[in-house]
Each structure stands twice: as C-alpha cells, then as structure tokens.
C-alpha cells in the first residue's frame, strides 16, 4: 500500500525544507542521498515527521537499515510514514 496524497505532500514539504529545494523538484523516485542532507539533517527530518504527524519514528542512526524507516527514496519515506499512521493493524 502506498501513501495517500496528503501524506505524500506533507512528507515532501518536510524533505524539501531540509534539502533547501522546491517541493516541485522532488518526485517519488528522487533518492534521499542525492539531496545533500547530512546526518544532522536526517535527524531533523525524522523530528519534523514525528511532530507533523504525531507519530514515533523507530530509527537508530547506528543501524539505519534495522528500523521501519526506509530512507532510500521520497516514495519509501512516504510509505513508511503512511504505515506508521495506519498503525500495526493495517
């Protein structure tokens, strides 16, 4: 299940703010590593997502692949946020 349009729009706004780019420049396929965001920027993105959506994002910077947050592309981030919003029953 992909993210709904509202979730996608809000996640893109957060990513664009951190990447200092226009939200229109980000597509679902845009790779996060191409946005020039360092580890601190990443922490800020996760914080912004938690604040904006009122969710807790499981993510440990030491084991980035172990949590539920796949930070590969814009789409994987949106999907992960949607899963957090839909809760464990979904």
């Amino acid at each position, binding site marked *: 299940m992909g993210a709904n349009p509202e979730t996608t729009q809000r996640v893109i706004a957060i990513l664009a703010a951190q990447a200092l780019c226009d939200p229109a420049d980000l597509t679902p396929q845009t790779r996060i590593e191409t946005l020039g965001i*360092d*580890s*601190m920027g990443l*922490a800020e993105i*996760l*914080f912004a997502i938690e604040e904006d959506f009122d969710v*807790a994002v499981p*993510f*440990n*910077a*030491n*084991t980035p692949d*172990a949590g539920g947050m796949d930070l590969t592309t814009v789409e994987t981030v949106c999907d992960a946020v949607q899963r957090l919003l839909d809760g464990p029953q979904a």
Partner: protein
Amino acid sequence: MTGRRRVAITGAGTINALADSVPGTLAALTDGRVGIGPLEFVDVERLSIRIGGQVRGWATEGRFTRAQIALYDRATQFAMSASAQAVAQAGLTLTDVETLRAGVIMGSAGGGYTTIDDAYRTVYPQGKNRVHPFTIPRLMHNAAAAHMAMAHGFKGPSFTVSTACASSNHAMGLAFQMIQSGAAEVMLTGGSEATLCFGGIKAWEALRVLSPDGCRPFCATRNGLVQGEGAAVFVFEDWDRARLRGADILAEVAGFSMTSDAADIVVPDADGALRAMQGAMTQAGLSPADVGYINAHGTGTAINDRTEARAITTQFGAQLPLVSSTKSMHGHLLGATGAVEALACILALRDGIIAPTMGHREADPDCPVDCVPNEARRAQVGAALSNAFAFGGMNACLAFKRA
C-alpha cells in the same frame, strides 16, 4: 622535554555504576562486570531508551551534612566523594604556602543537570512560581571544582573544563601541564557527571545514537552508546615532590595532546584523533612499540568506533596495541568518562590487567583491532593511551607510563 617537571599520580577516587571505590571499580573491570541496567528516575516510562550505567543506592545522608546536600548537585556529590578518596590515598598534607600552589581542574559536560531538570519541572509542569534559592550555585559547571577546593583548602588555579565527552581528558591534561610548567605542585583533577534524568536522556534520544539494549564497542552488532554517571578524581603531583615524601606513585602522566577536527559538530574525523594520539606519544617519548594498551573512546556508535579504529591502525600499523572500551561496563560518563577510563590505564600499567570490552558478539571488519573481547587479559604494559573524542571535534589524548 628538558626543564619540564614530571607528573606523578599519587591518589585516585571514584564513584560509578561499577563501584563506589577504586579497588571495587578495578575488580569489576577485571571481572568484566557490566554496570549497565534499567534506569530508575521520575518519568523514565516516557523514554524510549531506558538503560544506563546508573549509580545505585546512592545515599546522601551520612555522607554529607544537611547544608552540603542543599548545595551539592548529584554531580558535585560524586566529585566530593571521589576527591575525598583520592586525597586520602595520596596522604596529602599541605602547608599554608603549599596550598597556594595546589589547584583543582575538573571536567563536566552537563554541570548540574538534575538540578536544572528538577527546577524546570517545578516551574513548568508543576506550575510553581519559585525554585530552590541554591539552584544557580548547584547547577553551575564549576560547582564541583569549587567545593573540592574549599574542602581541601586548595588555593591555586581552579576551574572546570567543558568539552563534551572529552572534558575530563582536557581537565587532566591541563592539570598535567600546570604541574609540568611549574605553575602548580599538586592538582586535584578528573571529571564528574550526573545527567541520568528525564531531560538528560530525552535530549540524547533525539539524536538517535543511543542503544536500547547495551554498549558493544567495536562489535559488528553495536547499535549506539549507553550513558553512565559518576566521577573519578586523581591527585597529580610534581614527581620529585612525590618521591621525596615517599608517596606511592600509581602511574606517571607522561604526555598530553589536544586537537580539533575543525570539520563537523558531531561526526568524528580520523585525522583529528590520529594527531591527538601522535602528539601525546611524542611528548611522552613513546614509539608505537612502547604502547601496550589503549583505552579507546569506543562509544559503541557505528561511526566513532570505525573512525577510531582507522586512526589507531594508521598510527600503529603492524604493531597494534591491545585496545578496549570499558564504556561497555560503566557506560559513557560524558564529561567524566576519561577520568574513569584512566583507572583502566592504571590497572593495565600497575597490575598488568587489560580490562575487556564486554558485550562483544561478532568482529567488525571495519574495526580491525584486538578489543580484548569479553574477558580480561594479562599483559605487561609500560605505557598506555587514553582517548577522548568529543562532539565538536575536540580530541584529547593522555599518555601514561608505569611508575
């Protein structure tokens, strides 16, 4: 080197998650006892990270007077306990004139963190309109050093260094230089930290570098650092003075170097770490073959351990010394960590025991050092290094020699 005075360690004291004394701590380090466990304080259930190297069963009654308890933050309490042990071991008796050339340099990253946490709790969630009148003198970073100077009558140079996780190595390094240069004869030095409270852990949680289940430095499965608390304090003394009065010298402080990465506020740089080790070794006159043990900064984060291992292998090449991180047992005491870790160096130099890196499960090809996994080892060590690499890219390395 010529003209510089040599520096002896003639006393040591500590309180940390492993024990409330130096012999107890050395025994725990030898046994590979892990002092990390479930945290206990107000609101801990609101944290996602709930483990730490906490000092348990700490009773202030009986240790301190009522007036002292009112003035001492938990970090100051730890410092006072550790310094009393150190001064007693050193058997110091200073004349009035000598007190003018005796000082205190302490390291602290957080100062009176629990005092701040308690005061904020009082005025925000509890909605009260006043806090305890000693809130400021309790929380200030130099409180521990000030109370130590008062308690022992040291009237020379006294101050506190705050360089995050390198604070106590910077403090001990400066105390070393103070005696080396002739500016002081005797220094009380080390670090004290007590940040294990709701606000202290909550802030670290947000950085997403804490481990939820344990500190496993240099292990392929490591997943972050675990905070600890406590203090360690040493008596540094002019070598000739110590010899003359027949003091038992625990070790020699032989070299110190501090460098700055000047690169990133949190990501460490191998070059800064390398230069710190090289500087301390050069000052101490040590070649790679002379160094038998390194107490690593070894936080258990993915990036620190990889970067530190790279710096160590670059400096030592095929002559790698044993490397262990005792944070796996006492946790990361932030501004006091280097002071507690200096005890592991003394253990290696004096007793020939290399404290292990506990919690080790699986070798990490990115960390090709012998980290003395899970069991202490015997080794004759003539010289040891103690690394501290702080947020801010501020590095401080101490070199110790067997006395």
